C-alpha cells in the first residue's frame, strides 16, 4: 500500500520559527504523526456491558472507562468513551462486533494527529483550549474532548506531552492557528513521523 502522506506539511514545514533559533532549546515542538489508527466501536443500549467486556479483554485494559473517561493499556493504546454508547479505540484494531451487538467504524483518516511537547506546551494549548492542564488535574492518560476554535478536537495528555486529534478537514487551519500562537514562545517543527501514538 502507498504510504500515508503528511497533510500538514504546508502549515508545518520542518524548521524553527518565532522566537526560537536553531541554537535554542525550543520551548515547543510540533510533529505530525501519519499513522493514526482510530476506530469507533458502538453498542446498543442492551449490549453496553458485553461490548465493554470485549474492548477491555481484547485491548488489554484494566477496566472500562466511565463517561467521558479514558484508559491507557500497557502498550500505550487508549480506550476513550466519547459518547454513552460509543468508544474510540486509539492505536489498535477493534474487536469483531456482530451487528446485533454493535458496530465498528474506521476513523483513522478522519483525524490528523498533531503531537506537541516542550515546556510551553500546556501554556500554548491553554491559549485555545478551556481545559485544566495543571499536572494535579491532568494526570498521564487523561483525555479531553474539547473545542479548538469552535471545532471538536480530542486532546490526549501524557505528562508534558500532548497529542491533538484534529478533524482532517480543519487540521491545516487549526495548525496555522496554533503556530500563530506559538510564535511568541518559539517553536520547532519536526518532520512528520509514521510512529504510532507516543505514550509513556
Amino acid at each position: 500500500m502507498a504510504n500515508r502522506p503528511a497533510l500538514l506539511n504546508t502549515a508545518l514545514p520542518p524548521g524553527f520559527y518565532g522566537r526560537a533559533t536553531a541554537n535554542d532549546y525550543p520551548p515547543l515542538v510540533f510533529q505530525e504523526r501519519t499513522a493514526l489508527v482510530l476506530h469507533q466501536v458502538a453498542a446498543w443500549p442492551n449490549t453496553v456491558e458485553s461490548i465493554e467486556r470485549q474492548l477491555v479483554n481484547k485491548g488489554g485494559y484494566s477496566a472500562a472507562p466511565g463517561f467521558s473517561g479514558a484508559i491507557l493499556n500497557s502498550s500505550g493504546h487508549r480506550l476513550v468513551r466519547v459518547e454513552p454508547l460509543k468508544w474510540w479505540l486509539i492505536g489498535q484494531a477493534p474487536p469483531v462486533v456482530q451487528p446485533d451487538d454493535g458496530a465498528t467504524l474506521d476513523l483513522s483518516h478522519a483525524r490528523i494527529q498533531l503531537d506537541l511537547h516542550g515546556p510551553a506546551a500546556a501554556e500554548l494549548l491553554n491559549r485555545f483550549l478551556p481545559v485544566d492542564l495543571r499536572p494535579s488535574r491532568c494526570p498521564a492518560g487523561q483525555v479531553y474532548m474539547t473545542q479548538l476554535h469552535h471545532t471538536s478536537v480530542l486532546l490526549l495528555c501524557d505528562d508534558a506531552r500532548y497529542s491533538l486529534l484534529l478533524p482532517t478537514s480543519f487540521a491545516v487551519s487549526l495548525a496555522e492557528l496554533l503556530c500563530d500562537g506559538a510564535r511568541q514562545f518559539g517553536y520547532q517543527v519536526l518532520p512528520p513521523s509514521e510512529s504510532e501514538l507516543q505514550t509513556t
Partner: protein
Amino acid sequence: MSATRVDGYGWSLGAATLNFSWDGTRYQGREGDTLASALLVNNVGPIGRSFKYHRPRGITSAGVEESGALVTVGQGDRRDPNVRATTQTLYEGLQAYGQNAWPNVRYDAGAINNVMGRFFAAGFYYKTFFGLPPFDTGSGTGVWMKYESLIRKAAGMGSASTAPDPDHYEHAHGFCDVLVVGSGPAGRRAASVAVQSGLNVWLVEQDSAFGGTDLSATDNRQQLIGQSIAELEAAGVTLLKRTTAFGLYDNAVAGLLERVTDHEADPSPWLPRQRFWTVRATRIILATGALERGYAFAHNDRPGVMTPSAAATYLNRYGVLAGQTICIGTNNDSAYRTATDLAKAGAVVTLLDARTRLQHPQLSDAAKAAGVNVRLRSLPGKALGRCSVTGVKTAVLAGREWRAQSRIACDALLVSGGWSPVVHLLSHRGVRPVWNETLQAFLPGETSEPISVCGSAAGYWSEQQCLDSGEAAAHDAVDAMAGVTGTATISVPLGWDNPIAPLYALNIDTRSGQTKAFVDLQHDVTSSDIALAHREGFVSVEHMKRYTTLGMANDQGKNGNVIGLALLADALGTAIDSVGTTTFRPPYTPVAIGALAGPHKGSHFRPLRRTPLHAWNLAAGGTLIEAGLWQRPWYFKQTNESLEETYSREARVTRQRVGLCDVTSLGKIAVQGPDAAEFLDRVYTNPFKTLQPGRARYGIMLRDDGMVFDDGTTWCLSPTDYFMTTTTAHAGAVLQRLEELLQVRWPELRVHVSSVTDQWAGVSVAGPLARQVLEQCVADAETVSDAALPFMGVIDTELQHAIPARIARISFSGELGYEVYTPSGFGPEMMTQLWTEAQAVGGCLYGLEALNTLRIEKGHVTGAELDGNITLQDAGLGNMGASSKAYVGSVLKDRPELRREDRPSLVGLSPVNTSERFNAGSLLYAPDKVGGHPIGWVTGVTFSPQYDHWIGIGYIEGGATAWPTTDIVCTDPIRGAQTTVRVSTAHRYDPEGARVRG
C-alpha cells in the same frame, strides 16, 4: 498649575529620559512616568474637553477612575482613543493627542456649548427633538437622524481609527484554586496565606506595578513590595500585572485583560498587544481597594482639581509636586497625611476640613507641625480660574449652612468627599452593595458564591485591618476548599479615627445656574441635572441614571455614583440606603474590540475546511473559492483564459472526454445497525428497504412540514451498513437531524449515525471516457466494467498501489460518471493516478463553476433551488414521494396549499435573444404585468457551451407547461438589467439519461 519634579521623591522613576509628544509638541518625561505624570510635570493643560459642554479638563486622579485626562494615543491604524493618561505608561516616542475638540483642546470652538449650557440640561434632546409646537415641526425619524448627526459631532469622546487593526490579540484560559484581584496589602497577604496552605494561586494587578496603595505610600515601600512579590513568586503564585479583572461571571469565572505590550515603544513582533483571559477559579478573593471621590461644588472640574490621594501618588511614586500653593478640602482623615507630605515636599498647603472638631487630633497636629494651615468648618466652595485653578472661594459652616467666606490663591485644589470601595466586580454577580452610614460608603453585600472581599474594598481603612481581612479571606478559601466551615473571623470596619462627615455637594453660589457643579465629570452630569430629573419625576435611581446618563459608559459610576445617589436621596427627603444603587456592569475598564476578537480574524475569522486535495488542487493551478467553511476548487485556468472561457472549456471537455472534480466536501454519514434500512426508509421519501448491497439510490429528505430538506445518494455496503452522502451545505444539519430522530423519535431503532466526511477524499470522474480512466487506476479493471458496476452500482475495491477505494457509478453532470473515494490520507495519490490517466485521454480538471454549468444544463438541483420553501412537486421530483409508506414529512407535504397546480415549479430558462445574458436572482414577470409580486425567480445561470448561449434554471408559477410560448420578462432591479426569456423543462440535456448509462 505649576507642578515640579521634586528631588528625593518618585521611587518608581528610572534614570532614563523619555521623549514624547502631546498634540504635536515634544516633551520629556522619565522612565517610570505615566503619561499623566509626564504631562503634569510639564504643566500641560488643559488635557481634555468635556463630553457635552466642551469644558477644559485636567488630570483628576492617578488611576483607572480618571474622567478628565482621556486622550488619544498613537497615530494612523494604531490610533487608540479614550485612553486614560493616568494608566498609560510613558515610553520613548509616545504620541498623544487631545480629543473631542476642534482645533485642539486648548482652543476649542465647541466651548460655545458651555455658554449655551443652560439649554443642554439632562434630557434636552428628548424634549427638543420631539418637534416644535404647535405642529410638532421637526419631529419624525428623518429629521431626528439629521439632528443626531450634529449631536454626535458636537458631543462624545475620541474617534477610533477606521483602518484595520495591525496588532494581534490573544485569548487564553487559566485555572487556579484561588484568584486574588488586587496586589495591595490585603491582596498580597491573602495570596501569601493561600499559597502557603498549598493552594494554587493567581494574583492579578491592573497597575503597571504590584503594590496597590503601597505604591503611593509616604515611606518608600519598594523594597517591602519587592520582597513580598518575590516570596509569592518563589512559592509558585502566578503573578500578572497590567492585568485588569474586568468582569466576574458564573461559577467563579473571571474575565481578565492583560496589556502585554501597550507600554512598550518597540514591542516584540512575536507578542500580542493584549491578552484576553478567561480564568476559572475555585475561589475568588477581591482586594480591589477603594477610590477617593470628590464632591459637587462650583467649577469642581477645573484643570488643577484632583483628589488628595492622586496628589500623594504623583508626589511619592512619580516625584511630581502637583502645585506650589495647594488647597485641600476634605471631610475625612486620609487627606491629612497627603497634606503633610506635600508640605514636607515644599508646597504651601492649606487644608479645609468640613468637620467641626477632631476627636483624635494627632493627624492634624502632625500636619500643622509640617506647616499645613488647617481650618475646620471650612471647605472649598468654588474653584477659580478658567483653564487652570488660580484660587478657591472658601465656604464656612455657619450653624447648619455653608456660606461663602474668603478667597485663597492656589495653583492646585485637592478635594476628598470620602472613599468608595470598589464593589463593581461583586455587582457583576448581581450582589447589591449595602450602605454603611459610619463609613458613608457602599460596602459589598453578602453572596453565596465562592467570592470573598477584603481590604479597603470591604471598608477596612487601616493597614492592619486590611492585612487581617486578607488573611481571613484566604483562610475562608482554604476552609471552603477543604470542605470545612470557615473559622476565620474579622472585625467590622472601624472607619476613620475621626468620623467622616457626610459631604456630597456644596452650593454657595448665589447666582444659581450660572456655575456648574459636576457629579459625573465624564458625562457632564451636574448637581442641577439630578435636581431636574427629580423635578421631572425620575425618582427611581434607575430612571435617574438613564435620564441623566450618570455613571454610564466606561466610567461605570466610579466617581459620581455615590454623589448622585446622595443628591437624589436629599431631593426625595430620604436616606441613601432607601434610594438604593444602580448595577455596575462589566467591563470595569474598557476592553478593546480587538481583544474580544482575539486571534479569530482574517483567515481565522472562521475555521477553514480544506480537502485532502487542497494542496494538490493549488499545485495543479486551481483557484479556490469558499463554499461555507470549505475551500473548494472554483476553476483551473489556463493561460489568458477568462473565467467564462475557463469553465466553458472545462464543461465542454467533460462532456466530450472526461473531467475530474474534487467533491470531498460532500457530507458523508455512516448509517449502521440492524435497523438501518428501516431508518432510511422513514427518513427518505422513496423506498430504501429494497436497496440491495452494492447499489446506491438517490433520496430526498423532507422536513416535518413537508418541505424539501436535503438530497443525496445512499450506498448500501451491507444490510447493516450504509454510506449516505448529503449536500455540502447541509451535512451538519442532516447529521443533527438524524441524531435527533434516533434519540427522540425512534429510540427503539438500533442504528448509529456517524460523520465520516473527514474520513474520505472524493473525486468525481465524469465524461464519456470516465470508465476508461478508471480502468487504468483500479487494481482490477474488470471491477469497473459496465456489468460489474452498472449505473447506481457500488463497489469497494483498490486503486493502484493497494489504495483502498469505494466507487459508486453516479452522475451529477449528466455524463457517465463515478464518485471515487479513498481514505483521506490517500486522496492526493488517488487524484494523481486519476489525473495521469485523464490527461492521457485529453481530460481536464474542473471546479465548482463548471460543475454548476453541467448541472444547470442537466437540470439537477442544488441548495440554490432547495431553499427550504420548496416541495417535491415544486422541484420536479414528485415521483420521488412514495405513497406506500410513511416518512418524515409525508403527511404535511399533502397540504392543499402545497399541492396547488399554480405553485412555482422548476423550469429551464433561455434568453429569446441568445446573445443576451441574465442574472441569478432575477425576478420573472408575465409580459403584461411587470412589477409587483413576481411569478417566478432565477436560481442559477451559466453560459452553456452545449447550447452556445446563456441558460438558467429557476421557478415559475405553474411550471413550464403554463408558459409554453410566452415571452417572460426577466428583471434584475438590483443591477438594473432586463431580458426576455423563454421557459422550458429544466431537464433539457439528455432527458432520457442515455449518457449516464453509457
